[in-house]
């Protein structure tokens, strides 16, 4: 293998090692099953490997970019599914069961950040939080959510918007995304 190709592959491994944990966490949160989460993360990173030039630093940190791709792939995967189990996947104990062996500073910071955002989400009024979670983590469309909740689409949109405005107010500008490499 020529040096250039070796360097490309090695650089990609570094990217994977830095961001795969966050990507897998997101995919697992959305899919609720490890096999599908693995599929989603694999698809996301392969697309990144094949189109690395698409990253544009003006659009935010590398991590946000990678997680955005992962989120998009996970939504696609969820919407491909013929049957979606709409019961809650138990999140309790996940951190204990799958916690990485090493607690690096970066990992600690990431965990704290995740806790902060989850805390902000949980402080939203239930109807707003639920609309946001169903859409963002569940991959449901606004029409599906309206049907599930038995409310007009306009109400769903309004709840999403209000919830996001509150989150933005609590979490502030995206400086935190840059603090973690």
């Amino acid at each position, binding site marked *: 293998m020529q040096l*250039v190709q070796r360097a490309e592959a090695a650089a990609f491994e570094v990217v*994977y090692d830095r961001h795969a944990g966050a990507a897998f966490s997101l995919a697992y*949160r959305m899919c609720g*099953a490890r096999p599908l989460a693995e599929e989603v993360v694999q698809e996301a990173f392969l697309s990144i490997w094949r189109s690395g030039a698409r990253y544009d630093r003006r659009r935010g940190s590398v991590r946000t970019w990678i997680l955005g791709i992962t989120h998009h792939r996970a939504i696609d995967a969820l919407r491909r*599914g013929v049957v979606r189990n709409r019961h*809650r996947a138990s999140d309790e104990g996940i951190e204990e069961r799958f916690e990485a062996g090493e607690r690096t500073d970066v990992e600690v910071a990431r965990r704290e950040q995740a806790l902060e955002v989850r805390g902000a989400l949980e402080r939203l009024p239930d109807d707003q939080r639920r609309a946001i979670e169903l859409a963002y983590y569940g991959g449901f469309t606004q029409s599906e959510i309206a049907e599930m909740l038995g409310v007009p689409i306009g109400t769903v949109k309004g709840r999403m918007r209000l919830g*996001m405005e509150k989150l933005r107010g609590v979490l502030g500008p995206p400086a935190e995304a840059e603090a973690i490499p």
Partner: protein
Amino acid sequence: MSERCDRRDTVGAYLLGALTEAERRAFETHLADCAPCREDAGELRVAADALLLAAPPVSPPAELRERLMETVHAEAAVLSAAGPHADSAPRAVGSGRRGRWRDWLERPFALAGAAAAVAAAGIALGLGLGSPTNSGGTRTVVAVRTVQGAVSGVASGRASGRGAASAVDPIARSGVTSRRRSSRGCNPGLRH
């Protein structure tokens, strides 16, 4: 914000990925013409980005890394075997994937000052928010596969049937396809 648009409430649904493909495309067309909605999307983007980071930490399995890197090294080897021409086709179609790829990898991952840049780029953000991989990714993959097809003789003569592209197709190689069939009971992992 100077004025309100009657489609303002769709901004949140758009950023959360709650639109169908058709709705998303229609709203992106609207965003191109509606400055208040673009500004709005740039501001609320903060919340959507934060949600990306909120998942409880779960470690990916080592096998995932092994599978992925096997594919990556195989594709790098095919490109390498193709020689200098391997780079020319992706550049022509995909705007120089390899050069820029290395370029941004070599940069620090913590992009100091990017927060301000993000705020300033709110308008640009508003246009491509929901689909980071939609337009470019596919095109580049096609380019790579074209290269693989062109060098199929070099790639140990595996180019038969569906061609070299399928021979190095990572999804087929990794058994993901078969898992996909059995994973339809996926769970959105909702709290309620």
